[in-house]
């Protein structure tokens, strides 16, 4: 498959910037006031591209090799192979029960793989208990120690190492100012808001200067506005400290916004590893295409290189390397479809619903029984007969997979509801 720079690439960027703009302006102010305290010697705070994307050669920090894990006979992880690099912001993304939290807990030392090896900086650490690992975790519900105040919570790892009092005080204050909680030392953690607890949890996990920070859906409990701010702040902290972040979430927007690398997981298996752009533009299979963003996924047949047939029409495309007549899954992102007059359209159908969602309209069009979703800024009326125009580079071809056919059209359009009813994954992987 060829790398394409299509409209969807642009669309992705708008999506990202849409998520960030409000936070960014505030960010700029903060940056001026705040010294970059966590910069460590010899480590550049600048983001470096990792090896797998052909960038600078980077050191592998964590390697998972053939990891499998099951609970009570139920397979949770099925042969996971993953390299995580120094300085990387890596996100494990997937629906609840996909094994992402278990993966995180295996790296943290809270679960042990049934099979496979966990390698940390070249050393096999399968049997190393959590307290000996140079890895810290920000837990889902923060796991603040309720009997200790803010200062003592953050100082906890240092006290454990018998660091001199004076150093502890300095370090804790350094951390407090990094997370912008100056003067909160003696507050009870139970009196803090969710966002503040979150910051304490991050400070507590970072004060021991781990090589890797694990974050288990840390933003899940925050409200939307706060979440967006924290996303930016986390990203900033990661860049400033140069610590590898492994972040678990089921929120694809969050993953796209923050990550250098996204690992999409489903049913205990890794579906795709790549940059946010890769994952969005070049989904490997129907699952990834459906999980990330909106997509119309159709059954198609690859006639020959650069030529695909679906919805009863033959299209030019930019993919090649498939067998002639090979059945494939075709993805077309809703924002890559243009609405044109019926006679100019490659496909024709009737508009069944139009929803205004702010930046654009979401239009559902029935084409031969398949309900397409199209995002457009042009208004069309319900019941109107319209044509669709699709550029060759807007068409992405995927090999058939076990997920083919699972994700249909938008006839029962309930994505928003799905997201709302997504459980917080509180019980995932516990019992």
């Amino acid at each position, binding site marked *: 498959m060829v790398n394409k720079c299509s409209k969807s690439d642009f669309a992705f960027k708008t999506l990202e910037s849409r998520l960030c703009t409000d936070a960014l302006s505030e960010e700029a102010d903060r940056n001026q006031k705040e010294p970059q305290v966590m910069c460590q010697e010899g480590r550049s705070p600048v983001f470096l591209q990792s090896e797998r994307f052909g960038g600078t050669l980077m050191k592998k920090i964590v390697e998972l090799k053939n990891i499998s894990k099951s609970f009570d006979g139920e397979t949770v992880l099925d042969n996971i192979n993953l390299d995580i690099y120094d300085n990387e912001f890596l996100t494990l993304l997937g629906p609840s029960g996909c094994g992402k939290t278990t993966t995180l807990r295996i790296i943290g030392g809270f679960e042990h793989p049934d099979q496979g090896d966990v390698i940390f900086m070249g050393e096999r650490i399968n049997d190393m*208990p959590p307290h000996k690992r140079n890895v810290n*975790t920000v837990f889902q519900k923060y796991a603040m120690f309720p009997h200790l105040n803010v200062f003592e919570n953050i100082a906890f790892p240092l006290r454990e190492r018998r660091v001199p009092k004076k150093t502890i005080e300095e370090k804790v204050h350094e951390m407090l100012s990094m997370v912008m909680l100056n003067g909160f030392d003696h507050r009870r953690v139970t009196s803090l808001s969710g966002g503040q607890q979150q910051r304490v949890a991050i400070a507590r996990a970072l004060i021991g200067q781990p090589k890797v920070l694990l974050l288990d859906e840390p933003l899940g409990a925050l409200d939307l506005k706060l979440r967006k701010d924290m996303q930016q702040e986390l990203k900033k902290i990661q860049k400033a400290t140069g610590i590898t972040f492994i972040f678990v979430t089921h929120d694809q927007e969050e993953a796209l916004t923050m990550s250098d690398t996204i690992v999409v997981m489903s049913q205990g298996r890794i579906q795709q590893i790549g940059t946010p752009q890769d994952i969005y533009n070049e989904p490997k299979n129907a699952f990834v295409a459906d999980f990330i963003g909106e997509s119309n996924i159709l059954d198609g047949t690859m006639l020959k290189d650069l030529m695909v047939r679906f919805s009863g029409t033959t299209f030019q495309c930019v993919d090649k390397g498939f067998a002639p007549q090979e059945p494939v899954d075709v993805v077309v992102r809703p924002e890559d479809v243009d609405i044109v007059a019926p006679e100019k359209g490659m496909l024709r159908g009737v508009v069944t619903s139009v929803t205004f969602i702010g930046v654009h309209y979401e239009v559902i069009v029935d084409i031969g029984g398949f309900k397409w979703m199209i995002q457009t800024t042009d208004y069309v009326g319900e019941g109107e007969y319209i044509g669709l125009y699709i550029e060759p580079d807007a068409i992405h071809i995927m090999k058939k997979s076990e997920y083919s056919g699972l994700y249909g059209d938008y006839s029962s359009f309930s994505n928003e509801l799905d997201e709302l009813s997504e459980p917080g994954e509180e019980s995932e992987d516990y019992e």
Partner: protein
Amino acid sequence: MKTTSRIYTALVFIFLFAPIAILLVFSFNESKSLSVFGGFSIKWYRELLHDEATLESVRNTLLLAVSAMVISTVMGTAAAVGIQKLRSKWLRTALSTATDIPMTNPDIITGISLMLMFVFVGRLFGLANSLSFWTMLIAHVTFCLPYVILQVLPRLRQMDPSLPEAAQDLGCPPLRAFFKVVLPEIRPGIVTGAIMAFTLSLDDFVISYFTSGAGFQTLPVRIYNMTKKTVTPKMYALATIIFFVILALLLISNLTDQNKKKPNQ
């Protein structure tokens, strides 16, 4: 409505406290009668202080209650921690059932069953009388344990399971993580459990009755033996003292409760 409920409540409390009032009054009776007041005197209190057997039974009771409390609190807390982590459903049900037994079985059956075992095992070792302080201690720990477990377990449930993990994550070995993070969280449950164990042991008559030997008598068993014969106001004097001790303890605990609440609001 309000007055009816007040009158009703008052009547029930009169019913509950009538015998206590009677024994308070008659403990100061000059005469030996328990129903005719013959003038004020504290001679029964003086006599009580010279009743060596009773005083010894008080000491025995306290010794037993403290021992039973300590053992059942430590073992029960450990058990609760273990049960909380238990993944096997089968074991959980088995333990839950076993724990229910001493609480739902009548005391007389718990007492008889332990007594039969002690006697049988004692006979195996050729002991004529196997019942002693130790058999009573075993019995008391046995019936106190479930109460401790059921006090600690909900506290463990309420606790965020990632707390001990967080402590380990931040460099604490597992055992120290328990003491530094889990224990402070479940302390209220442990304290309540310990108090319950102590008072249950202090007050138990039926199980003690079946498992006590001739050499070791607790206060309730002693009182039982005393009420078999004619009772003098001396026993009422004893009850009066118990009443005031309990009253004092309850007041103190209420006051400290209030003091604790104030600074935190």
